[in-house]
């Protein structure tokens, strides 16, 4: 597998789409930070939070980069060159997984680097305990690896490059939008404060009323669990600064990685290739 990893990384290094996505991940994170800074200069005081806010952008660029990288082996037929000379399917699957995950982590690091350097130059501070900051970094890295595993399943089981790109992008948007919707539903307050106009023209507060949009009971537990387990949900929580169960999130990501890889590797093992 080391041979395949060497070959994969050499190819990744020469792949234009990877570099374009890497530069865009870096540039977009920096642009977002500078845009926030122009409105709220005090944001540099909470640099740690700013660093964690660009995870979903990285996922978007990773999805494009991974789909093009994995799809090329099918569209150019070069996956055959690996099998013909005796590499096993497991070796091919895992080497692609490692390469995709590494490219995700590299993009994440690129998005942090620009913000960190600029923020520090602007006199910024982390704004959170170092331990908490490293925990958030670990959550981000694990989530990026888990989402890479999902992209790897798509990229290894579908033989058409254009279909891989389409499905990967659609999946990314579904995951992003789904996580944002869940997050906003969970953020709805349990009670809402009504306003009433008094006879003398003033405004008085009414008794708090139950919010019909509030999600409660088992449905709330399920939605919370889904948002904690899915990498996109973890990124959205990091972005909004309200991480539900940080100590478990890396474990959830490892679970997603293991489940996706088990399904993908088993299906790829028996897949008929052309």
């Amino acid at each position, binding site marked *: 597998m080391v041979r395949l990893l060497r070959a994969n990384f*050499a190819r990744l290094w020469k792949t234009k789409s990877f570099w374009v996505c890497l530069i865009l991940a870096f540039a977009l994170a920096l642009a977002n930070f500078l845009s926030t800074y122009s409105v709220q200069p005090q944001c540099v005081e909470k640099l740690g939070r700013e660093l964690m806010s660009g995870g979903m952008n990285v996922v978007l660029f990773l999805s494009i980069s991974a789909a093009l990288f994995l799809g*090329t082996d099918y569209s150019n*037929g070069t*996956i055959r*060159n690996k099998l013909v*000379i005796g590499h096993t399917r497991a070796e091919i699957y895992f080497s692609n997984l490692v390469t995709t995950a590494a490219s995700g982590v590299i993009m994440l690091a690129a998005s942090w680097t620009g913000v960190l350097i600029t923020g520090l130059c602007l006199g910024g501070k982390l704004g959170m305990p170092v331990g908490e900051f490293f925990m958030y970094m670990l959550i981000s890295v694990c989530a990026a690896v888990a989402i890479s595993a999902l992209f790897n399943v798509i990229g290894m089981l579908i033989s058409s490059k254009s279909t891989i790109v389409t499905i990967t992008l659609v999946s990314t948007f579904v995951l992003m939008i789904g996580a944002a919707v869940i997050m906003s539903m969970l953020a709805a307050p349990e009670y809402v404060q009504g306003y009433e106009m008094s006879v003398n023209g003033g405004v008085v507060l009414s008794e708090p009323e139950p919010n019909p949009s509030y999600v409660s009971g088992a449905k709330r537990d399920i939605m919370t669990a889904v948002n904690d387990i899915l990498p996109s949900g973890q990124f959205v929580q990091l972005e909004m600064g309200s991480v539900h169960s940080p100590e478990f999130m890396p474990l959830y990501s490892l679970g997603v990685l293991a489940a996706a890889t088990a399904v993908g590797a088993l299906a790829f093992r028996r897949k*008929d290739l052309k």
Partner: protein
Amino acid sequence: MENVLTTHGLVKRYHKFTALDGLSMNVPKGSIYGFVGRNGAGKTTLIRLICGLQFATEGSFTLYGMESGSGEISKARRRMGAVVETPSIYLDMTAEDNLKEQYRVLGLPSFKGISELLKLVGLENTGKKKARNFSLGMRQRLGIAIALCGDPDFLLLDEPINGLDPQGIIDIRELILKLNRERQITVLISSHILDELSRLATHYGFVDKGRIVKEISAEQLEKECRKCARVSVSDTKKLATVLDTFGLEYAVIDERTADIYGEISITKLIDALKNAGCELFSVNEHDESLEAYFINLVGVGENG
């Protein structure tokens, strides 16, 4: 004779379609094995199975003595190179970068030998030109160069001359002959362009409907191919009537040409044709072609 590849009743089914139906064949070491069959006969399917791209529904094969079901088959495949259907090359890389990538996949310690390989396939002057800008022939030669990385003993080429121009066909033919003669590489070459195959192959395997109909050496085939007289006449319909009266076997090639098998008296034929109002332009001794042999063997099917 030692065999590089032996297949035992290989069956491959795709849902209800049977691509290979108990195919058994033997590829002798050092041979150029012409794998002959119509489109859809199962040639590419067999090559996919040997290369590990697909799995047989039933049956097995041995490659360099290693059973297909065993873990050892991966080791045997390291002695193999293949070009399956289209050449497997990275289109956004140069010829040299493509070979370097394959060297890495093989785990070779250095890039020594790449310039020799490029020279061997005639791509030494392509410089920084990307493979996507190569002609079909150049891509095919690059595909073969990639298959040759790691010095394989056995080369599988699936329809390597499809779509090539005459010069491209000659280049590939000479390359295959060179590899076989100078490097003693065993070559399995599938094709339905029989005339071209007859210039290369030392052994043949005729496949039809997923089964081997016959395996034969080129030497034996030459002996079995019947001699015939190729005649050129003004009207082959009248010729056919005359030949029917003689009770001779024949094959009409076109409106003016036909092959006559068996002993014929030219004098009697001329007289009979003259009486039938048919003019005889020429008579030449002619060997039955590989194409005719193949048609005799498998019959004229839906594609024929």
